[in-house]
């Protein structure tokens, strides 16, 4: 079915739903690379106008990628809850935007979660400004638990990412401590391994678990190796808190990551059986990012932001503790500059939250993108306004293993102090108990008691 709109006598026609969505997408290099982008601002606006008039129900009638050949499309269809959809069933995409901004309170947003499909959420995001994306996301609290409670309003958690170019144990531990001293690590202490061997995976999770248990930190740890390696480590009884996997929005793209839904389910069950969570059992950790499907030639003519939202259907099937987009990591051929990265980060956060995900963002960029620390400051501040569950921090904003820039631990100190956000409650209590923070919850200049505990521990000698 084709769609069209007329602006001042000129008729714009869009051949099918995926073309309409792609042409309505705010400008980004990835859609241009794929040959899907609008030719210019007028065609883009024509598509956005046609999209605004489209009934939300259209997305239930017309699939972007056929269910017959794609298990993610089947999952999206299975997840759709007719009753939950009822309050918005008669709306157009444009009316849905207004409903989100004006009518819907926190409860209404929560109850509509499984009535919404990724395509509906992607569609409405395309006709929303940055301010709109923030205003709606800020109303949608998504809380998850394992050893800490993540996502409460007024809180900001951080993944402490102590990567090392050769996975050296002392290097990882020191980097983790550097972050803990600045209050980073309440979302997870999570290492991207340089190698993907089982021995290194087990060594890394043991190291992180020892650090966590010796210091009695109410958080969880993770080695971000492949899910198949995590499964083998679980079989051997290694201390695996969270199972990690990169995921994407089509069956073919997931196959490129060496996974399918059945494998994720197997890993989810195996990790649940280990029963390591103390206050909750959310234990999957997923990373996503616009451009992942295109880079695997598995986007089927669908724009990269809609493919990203489809990825969230995969994520929400497994009740994850953490999901984050690696927004600026995939490269300038997908998101060219700071402007595109900032918009995409807010879109991903908005779409993830509406679909019920505990959404975090890796606020980051590579050296061949036209972006810098100022752009990251802007994105961090906007995400905090939007109520992001967590961000990622590394020493001095320089990831020496993955060769890109994320946030520094100091950046999270800034967000908490200047914007008045608190760490996860259990972690905040720990920071207080070990003397890293004062009565107002502010980091102390010289945490003597904690440094003496560290000095006395045998972690270092």
């Amino acid at each position, binding site marked *: 079915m084709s769609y069209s709109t007329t602006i001042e006598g000129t008729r714009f026609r869009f051949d099918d739903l995926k073309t309409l969505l792609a042409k309505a997408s705010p400008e980004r290099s990835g859609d241009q*690379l794929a040959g899907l982008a609008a030719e210019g601002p007028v065609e883009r606006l024509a598509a956005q106008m046609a999209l605004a008039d489209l009934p939300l129900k259209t997305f239930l009638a017309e699939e972007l990628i056929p269910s017959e050949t794609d298990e993610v499309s089947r999952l999206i269809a299975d997840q759709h809850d007719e009753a939950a959809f009822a309050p918005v069933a008669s709306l157009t995409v444009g009316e849905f935007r207004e409903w989100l901004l004006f009518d819907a309170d926190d409860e209404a947003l929560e109850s509509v979660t499984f009535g919404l499909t990724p395509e509906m959420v992607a569609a409405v995001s395309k006709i929303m400004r940055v301010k709109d994306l923030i205003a709606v996301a800020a109303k949608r609290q998504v809380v998850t638990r394992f050893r800490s409670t993540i996502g409460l309003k007024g809180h900001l958690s951080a993944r402490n990412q102590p990567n090392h170019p050769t996975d050296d144990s002392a290097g990882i531990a020191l980097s983790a401590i550097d972050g803990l001293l600045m209050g980073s690590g309440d979302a997870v202490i999570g290492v991207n391994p340089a190698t993907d061997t089982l021995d290194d995976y087990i060594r890394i999770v043991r190291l992180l678990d020892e650090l966590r248990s010796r210091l009695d930190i109410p958080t969880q740890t993770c080695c971000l190796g492949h899910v198949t390696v995590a499964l083998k480590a679980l079989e051997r009884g290694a201390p695996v808190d969270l199972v990690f996997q990169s995921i994407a929005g089509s069956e073919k793209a997931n196959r490129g990551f060496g996974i399918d839904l059945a494998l994720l389910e197997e890993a989810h069950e195996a990790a649940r059986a280990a029963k390591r969570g103390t206050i909750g059992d959310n234990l999957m950790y997923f990373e996503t990012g616009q451009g992942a499907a295109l880079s695997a030639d598995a986007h089927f003519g669908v724009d990269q932001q809609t493919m990203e939202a489809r990825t969230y259907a995969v994520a929400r099937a497994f009740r994850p503790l953490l999901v984050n987009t690696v927004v600026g990591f995939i490269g300038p051929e997908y998101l060219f500059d700071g402007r595109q990265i900032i918009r995409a980060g807010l879109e991903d956060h908005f779409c993830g939250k509406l679909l019920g995900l505990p959404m975090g963002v890796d606020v980051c960029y590579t*050296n061949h993108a036209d972006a810098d620390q100022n752009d990251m400051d802007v994105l961090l501040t906007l995400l905090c306004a939007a109520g992001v569950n967590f961000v990622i921090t590394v020493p001095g904003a320089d990831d020496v293993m993955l060769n890109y820039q994320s946030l520094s631990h100091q950046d999270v100190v800034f967000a908490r102090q200047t914007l008045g956000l608190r760490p996860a409650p259990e972690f905040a209590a720990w920071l207080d108990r070990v003397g890293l923070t004062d009565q107002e919850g502010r980091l102390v200049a010289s945490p003597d008691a904690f440094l003496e505990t560290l000095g006395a521990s045998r972690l270092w000698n």
Partner: protein
Amino acid sequence: MSKEDVARPRRFDIGAFRELTEARIALGRPGAALPTKAEQTFLLDHARARAAVWSEVDWTRISAALNASELPSLPVASAAADRQIYVRRPDLGRQLCAEGAEALDRLAGSFKVAPDITIVIGDGLSATAVDFNAAPLATALAERLKARGMTLAPIILAERARVALGDPIGKALGAKVVVILIGERPGLSAADSLGAYLTFAPEPGTPDSRRNCLSNIREGGLTIERAAASIADLCAGMIKAGLSGVGLQAALEREGSASVSLTADEGNA
């Protein structure tokens, strides 16, 4: 641990362990910020990395340096018309521009016998890496290849090149093996790393699994001499085995030779 240690615990000083990781630990924290010096060191490193990505290689100097070693060269460009397009369109960086394709065809027409090896120098994502390291590496490599009896095409200087641009170049010249020396995506700590990618029987559409790769070629990383020796060994191994990539790695491992990294630098792919 003795009782005395428990009684007087030593205060942990993270700054004392700085040498254990390249990570920027123990920077300090005036309020919620980085100290000025750490902030500006970071900015300088970022500026260097950006300059490496966006500046142009001094091709005249490289061509002159090669000439001085009696190595002729031929400049070509990819189908990406400028650096902005090059960064946005990796697909164009993998194809030759029309003039480049014609120049290579003319060159191939002048050969009596097709050469064994074609060396390509591509700018990739770091002009700095190419300016510093490419001519010395190409010279050292050519010397070793010739000493082992392999024949060489003129060195192709490829502007706005991705790794796979070596495929149409190697194919046009009928080379058994194409070696592309290319600037790697710069990190903050090193902006001058060169990568070397080798492909047997190159042709457009060759999957990355059919390439072998050496990375981090720079002062302080893999040295020029060691890189040249490894690349020459790989060229000889490829011609002998008649293949490259994962298959060659398996063959070399069976022979007990040192294994070769197959990890492609994603930024350049």
